[in-house]
């Protein structure tokens, strides 16, 4: 018998392996070499310092949206709204970075904080409606995503536009980028955000596992009835869980605004950072450390797959299918967990 902990680790690993296997079969079926394809994927993700930096850079916002969704999930809520919270966080961080000129030690943390507040505010609306009116958070967060997308586009065009579809650049004092990191990773867009993501993961773990707040949030997530009978306020906890989840997603937006781009563009559609965060949280079993590791995998897949068409000759459409299949298997780890348990039972 596996211990429960070991089992929880084995299932996602097995899912990942299975995803790669089926992806390989598809490449073979269409006449491409999976060995070449996956070699290109690996080299494109970790082959040299530049690619490694890019993979890390891509993982940063994914880790934070993953934390956002995982945190809400542990409290019994489904935060589909990370996408919109990323937008408002991104916009708020960029606005603060453009408008103010402060010493970096103050400007940078404040910009991140402003983004967290914006994300929290965006999540507060569905939290409040759920707590007081019983409106399902999935419906409200989806609508809030569209509001965020279009409102941020409008604000960029009306107030912050420098040229084309891009805002002014943020002041240097609010930037997460550094010469040192860029040089170390051979010109990659990597920035100090990875430290923010790690701190975020630590904060989530600490709040959930070590504090009375986390004890209440998890109790409400597992069994709101018992929590209410024990004298906890279910409403307060729903709102609080959404606020914190929104804060994480807002910071994910700040990573794009203050780190990768140093500005914000108008968007024709969603960034998918929030939606990919759902898969990240699922694969990470809704834990802090799990979300960080899962974000690394997703970052590697996204960055590495860019090298598959030019290097291995696999057409980009097929690459997308292969990546989608890997994500599919990863996200369906619940099914795999069930299948493994079933298999074990039959053995007996």
């Amino acid at each position, binding site marked *: 018998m596996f211990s429960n902990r070991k089992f929880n680790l084995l299932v996602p690993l097995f899912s990942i392996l299975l995803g790669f296997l089926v992806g390989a079969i598809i490449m073979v079926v269409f006449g491409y070499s999976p060995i070449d394809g996956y070699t290109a994927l690996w080299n494109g993700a970790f082959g040299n310092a530049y690619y490694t930096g890019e993979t890390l850079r891509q993982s940063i916002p994914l880790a934070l949206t993953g934390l956002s969704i995982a945190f809400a999930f542990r409290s019994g809520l489904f935060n589909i709204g990370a996408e919109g919270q990323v937008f408002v966080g991104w916009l708020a961080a960029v606005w603060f970075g453009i408008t103010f000129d402060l010493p970096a030690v103050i400007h940078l943390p404040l910009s991140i904080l402003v983004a967290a507040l914006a994300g929290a505010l965006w999540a507060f609306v569905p939290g409040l409606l759920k707590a007081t009116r019983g409106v399902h958070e999935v419906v409200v967060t989806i609508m809030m995503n569209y509001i965020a997308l279009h409102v941020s586009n409008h604000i960029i065009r009306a107030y912050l536009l420098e040229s084309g579809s891009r805002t002014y650049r943020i002041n240097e004092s609010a930037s997460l980028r550094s010469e040192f990191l860029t040089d170390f990773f051979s010109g990659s867009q990597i920035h100090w955000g990875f430290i923010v993501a790690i701190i975020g993961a630590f904060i989530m773990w600490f709040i959930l596992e070590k*504090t009375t707040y986390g004890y209440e949030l998890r*109790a409400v997530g597992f069994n709101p009835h*018992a929590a*209410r009978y024990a004298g906890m306020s279910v409403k307060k906890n729903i709102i609080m869980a959404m606020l914190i989840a929104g804060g994480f997603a807002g910071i994910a937006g700040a990573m794009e605004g203050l780190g990768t781009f140093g500005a914000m563009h108008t968007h024709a559609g969603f960034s998918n950072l929030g939606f990919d965060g759902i898969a990240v949280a699922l694969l990470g079993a809704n834990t802090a450390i799990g979300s960080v590791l899962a974000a690394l995998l997703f970052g590697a897949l996204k960055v590495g797959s860019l090298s598959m068409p030019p290097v291995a000759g696999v057409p980009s459409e097929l690459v997308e299918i292969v990546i989608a299949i890997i994500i599919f298997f990863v996200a369906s780890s619940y099914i795999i967990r069930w299948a493994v348990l079933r298999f074990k039972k039959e053995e007996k």
Partner: protein
Amino acid sequence: MDNYVVEMLNIRKEFPGIVANDNINLQLKKGEIHALLGENGAGKSTLMNVLFGLYQPEKGEIRVNGKPVTITDPNVANRLGIGMVHQHFMLVEKFTVAQNIILGAEPKGKGRVVDLKKAEKEIAELSERYGLSVDPKAKISDISVGMQQRAEILKTLYRGAEVLILDEPTAVLTPQEIKELIGIMKSLISEGISIILITHKLKEIMEVSDRCTVIRKGEGVGTVNVNETDVDELASMMVGRQISFKTEKTEANPKENILSIKDLHVQDIRKAMMVKGLNLDVRAGEIVGVAGIDGNGQSELIEAITGLRKSESGSIQLNGKNIENLSTRKVTESGVAHIPQDRHKFGLVLDYPIAENMVLQTYYQKPFSNSKVLSFKNIYDHANQLIEDYDVRTPSPQTKARSLSGGNQQKAIIAREVDRSPDLLIAAQPTRGLDVGAIENIHKRLIKERDKGRAVLLVSFELDEVMNVSDRIAVMFDGEIVANVKPEETNEQELGLLMAGSTKEKAGEN
């Protein structure tokens, strides 16, 4: 040569690490009610799941009408005429009775359209034949639990069952519905149906069954004819030791008023007034039992006292201070403990370890946390102490509450509530679904708390419990306390009438 419809011989069923059934024999005669008795976890359900084809036995033989059979899945069991009514009903709430019954065996009319009319007619006939009086066109969500159970029974009959397995059928019923169910069971056997009745309620067995097979810790103890035995013998067969049914207690020594409720009005979630001008006092050192049929405002009364529901008017005083419409936390802090009626839903966070469940109301206080940071060392020390003091059987304090038996879950809740040294202890259905050993333990615990000078309010639908444990019985009917009686000055007959709304004078005449 007896004509047995079902025989289970030397059945053995193993699960990883445990033998759930060993050497069990059960022989069901045609047209009898055969009780299967055992404590929770004794292996009753496993044995029935073997018969119903959900598990395969490692050893042993099953015969139906004398022929050896292998029952690989429930469909095979159905074809052999074995039907099972589970404790938790398997019904689609939004469907009618008839739609539920034909589900999976739909009669096809012209052009493969489901012939509901025909089904409804057949079901109505079946219902009449067995005296079930179920309306096939009624929606499941609109009918009472008792009726839903009859719909389940009809479902098995419709599929041609001749052997009926009833799993704890009375656990969810009111005393009145139990009486009706017993009538139905008798009319079923008179029509040649045979019934296996799974239960741990001894009185029911004495009342309806012909024979009784007892299992203890997975092993068959034996089969007895019910008219040649008595409750005491059955109980000691089941538990393996003598059990006293008359809960032993000394005379109560009530002191000052702890809880004082005056003219309380409470609405339920649909805004119907459920508690209508209720008055009730509970004094230190006494157990007041609230007797009543489910749905007469008991839940709303408890929720109003514990701050889970707002009251419309009236006052609730604890030690002379008003506590009506305070938050649950404030009520808890002012000295009220509550053993809720549904331990899974309200009493425990099943996915939390036992230790964390034991601080569910006190986690934010010292020593369990310090400036909002939990102290797991103190939480676990506290749990170890309670586990020892209250004899909670758990592999460790880290074990999830979900994995404990019902009796031990309830012990954990009681340990948590009693340990806070409350002035008032409210126990709602504290022994529901527990076996006799656990019930005895919990009753003793309540009396011990009374002897320590606490006020105990016991709300129960089980008349036996109210009669045995209470020092004073308050009968609740239609949102009011209609009578206050002493258990030694009344009987079940009188209480039953009072609970049904007769006045004390009338009830006394009977």
